[in-house]
C-alpha cells in the first residue's frame, strides 16, 4: 500500500504529463516512496507499478538504473560522499576515512545500530564547494572538513 500522503504527492507529479503517459512519473513515485521508507522493497515496486499501470519489471528497470535508489534497507541516515575528481583534489579521501573510522563502516555498509550507512557518490554538480556529501539524498553539506563531519554526525539524532 502506498501511503495516502504519498499518493497525493504522486498525483501532483502526474499532472505534469499527458493523461496517457503515467509512466513519466515513475522516477518521482519511486523517490517519494523511498523518502518515506528509506528504501524500496519488492512490494513498493509492485505497488508503484500497479498505481502507474506499468509492468513491475519496467519499474524495477528504472529503480536499478538510477543509483540514488536503494533496493535494500539502509541506515536511518545514509551519507553519500562524492569522491569524483574535483572532490578528490580537495581531499574527499580524508573525509571518507574519517567517516569510516567514526562510524566503523565502509562504503556499502550499514552500522550495527542501523543509524548510518555510507555510500560512494558520483558527481553531484556542486564541485565548487567540494568536498561534499548528501544526507538521505536531499540535504547537501558542502566545504566539508573533519571538524564539520564531527558536528554533522552529532546533529543527526
Amino acid at each position, binding site marked *: 500500500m502506498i501511503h495516502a500522503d504519498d499518493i497525493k504527492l504522486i498525483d501532483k507529479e502526474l499532472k*505534469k504529463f*499527458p493523461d496517457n*503517459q*503515467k*509512466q*513519466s*512519473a*515513475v*522516477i*518521482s513515485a*519511486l*523517490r517519494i516512496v523511498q523518502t518515506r521508507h528509506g528504501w524500496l522493497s519488492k512490494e513498493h515496486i509492485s505497488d508503484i507499478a500497479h498505481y*502507474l499501470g*506499468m509492468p513491475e519489471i*519496467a519499474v524495477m*528497470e*528504472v529503480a536499478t*538504473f*538510477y*543509483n*540514488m*535508489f536503494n533496493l535494500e534497507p539502509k541506515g536511518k541516515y545514509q551519507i553519500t560522499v562524492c*569522491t*569524483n*575528481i*574535483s572532490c*578528490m*583534489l*580537495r581531499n574527499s579521501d580524508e573525509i571518507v576515512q574519517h567517516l569510516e573510522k567514526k562510524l566503523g563502516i565502509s562504503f556499502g555498509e550499514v552500522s550495527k545500530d542501523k543509524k548510518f550507512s555510507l555510500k560512494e*557518490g*558520483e*558527481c*553531484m*554538480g*556542486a*564541485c*565548487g*564547494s*567540494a568536498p561534499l556529501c*548528501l544526507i538521505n*539524498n*536531499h*540535504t*547537501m553539506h558542502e566545504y566539508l572538513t573533519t571538524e564539520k563531519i564531527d558536528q554533522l554526525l552529532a546533529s543527526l539524532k
Partner: protein
Amino acid sequence: MVKQIDIIKPSKIFPNQDLVCLRTMVHDDPGSIDTYLKIGGYEQLKQILKKKTKPEAILAELKTSGLRGRGGAGFPTAIKWSFMSRDYDGMKYLVCNSDEGEPGTFKDRDILRYNPHQLIEGMLIAAYVMGTRVGYNYIHGEIWREYELFEKALDEARDHGFLGENILGSDFSFDLFAVHGYGAYICGEETALIESIEGKKGQPRYKPPFPATYGIYGKPTNVNNTETFASVPWILEHGGQAFQDLGVENSGGVKLFSVSGHVEKPGNYEIKMGTPFSELLNMAGGIWHRRKLKAVIPGGPSTAVVPAALIENATMDYDGLQKIGSSLGAGSVIIMDDSTCMVSALKRLSYFFYEESCGQCTPCREGTGWVYRVIKRIVDGKGTREDLELLTDVSKKISGRTICALGDAAATPVLSFIKHFRPEFEYFIQHGHSMVNTK
C-alpha cells in the same frame, strides 16, 4: 519546501565578471521574481507578445549573437531552434537540460538558485519561437534544494501570469514543469534525457531521427542547456551584436566557467569568451598553498587534459582551447597542482565512466571496465610494460563505436593523460608507486 530566503546573496561575488546569466547576483535575494522584475525581467517576453514579433526576427538576433549550446557541444543555438518546424501543428515539447553531472560542472546550479526567472523567460521566448506549448526542466537529482527552488520559481511565474493559458492576455500559451533525475550521468545526453522523461532507463537513442522530429513521446522536441536558455533574454534586451561583441570570433558572448580543484577560490566565473586562462586563474585566487600548476582539464573530463605549459598562454573560447588540443566543453575547468598524481587522477575518472556507462553498447560497457581495471592494476603496483599500449588500444576501440558520446568521452581522458604524462605512467609501472610525493 525551501524558502527563497534561505538562499541569500552568495557569500562572495567575484569582481571583474561580465554578468549575463548571473546578473541578479549583485542584488539581495537574487533568485526572487521581485528582483528579476526590478532589473527589467520578463520585459522581453512582454514586448514580444505585445508587438507580436516574428519568430524569424528573434532567430536572426540569436544568429548575430553567436550563441552556441552551453552544455558542451557548442552547436549554434539559432540553427538548433530552426530545426523545429513551426508548421507542424501537433504537440511539440521544449526541454531544458539542467542535468549537469559532468565532473567539475556546477554552473547551471547557480542559475537555478540565483536567477531562475531568466531561465524561465528564456524558455518562454524559445517556446514562442518554436511553437511549443509544454516544457520540462530536467534537473540533476543530487541538487535537490535547487529543484525545490525552481518549483517555487515556477509557482511565482504562474502567479504573475507568465505561464499557463493565454499568457498576458495574448494567444500564446505555455506551461513549464520541473522534473528530476536520480543519479545517472548519462541522462545529460539529450536522447537519454528524453527516455528518462518518458519514465524509462536513460539509454540514448540512435540518431537520426533527431529530437527535433522524434523526441518525447515521439513528438518534435527541442533540448537546450540551462545557460543557453538563460542567455536569451539578455541577448534580446541588448541585441545580438552586443552579445557577440563581448566575446571573440566564433565564440560570441560571455561564458560561465566552473573552476574547481586546486585553486584558492573555486566557484563560477562569468567572463568574456576569449579571456586568457591566466586571468581566469587569477580571478580564482591562483593555485592554492602557493603550489605550481601542473595540468588543467578545461571543459570537464570528456575534454582532453592539457599540461600547464600548453594552457598558460591559451584563451578560454572554442577556438583557443581547440588550438591546444582540447575543447571548451561545458566550461568546467578542473585545476591540478604539482602534488597531483596523474595516474591516480585517471583511475578515478575511469571509474566514473565505467560506473556511468549505461551498458547499451558493448564497446563502452566492456571497454570502460577494462580500462578501469588496467589503471587500477597500475595503481596497485601490478602494472606491466604492455599496459599503456593496452589502455590506448582499448580506448581507441571504444571511441567512435557507440551510440552516444559517452564512449568517446571515456576514451579522451585515457588518451590525453597518457599522451601528456607518459613518463609518470611509466614510472608508476616500473617502481610500483607514484612519481609524485603526494603532499
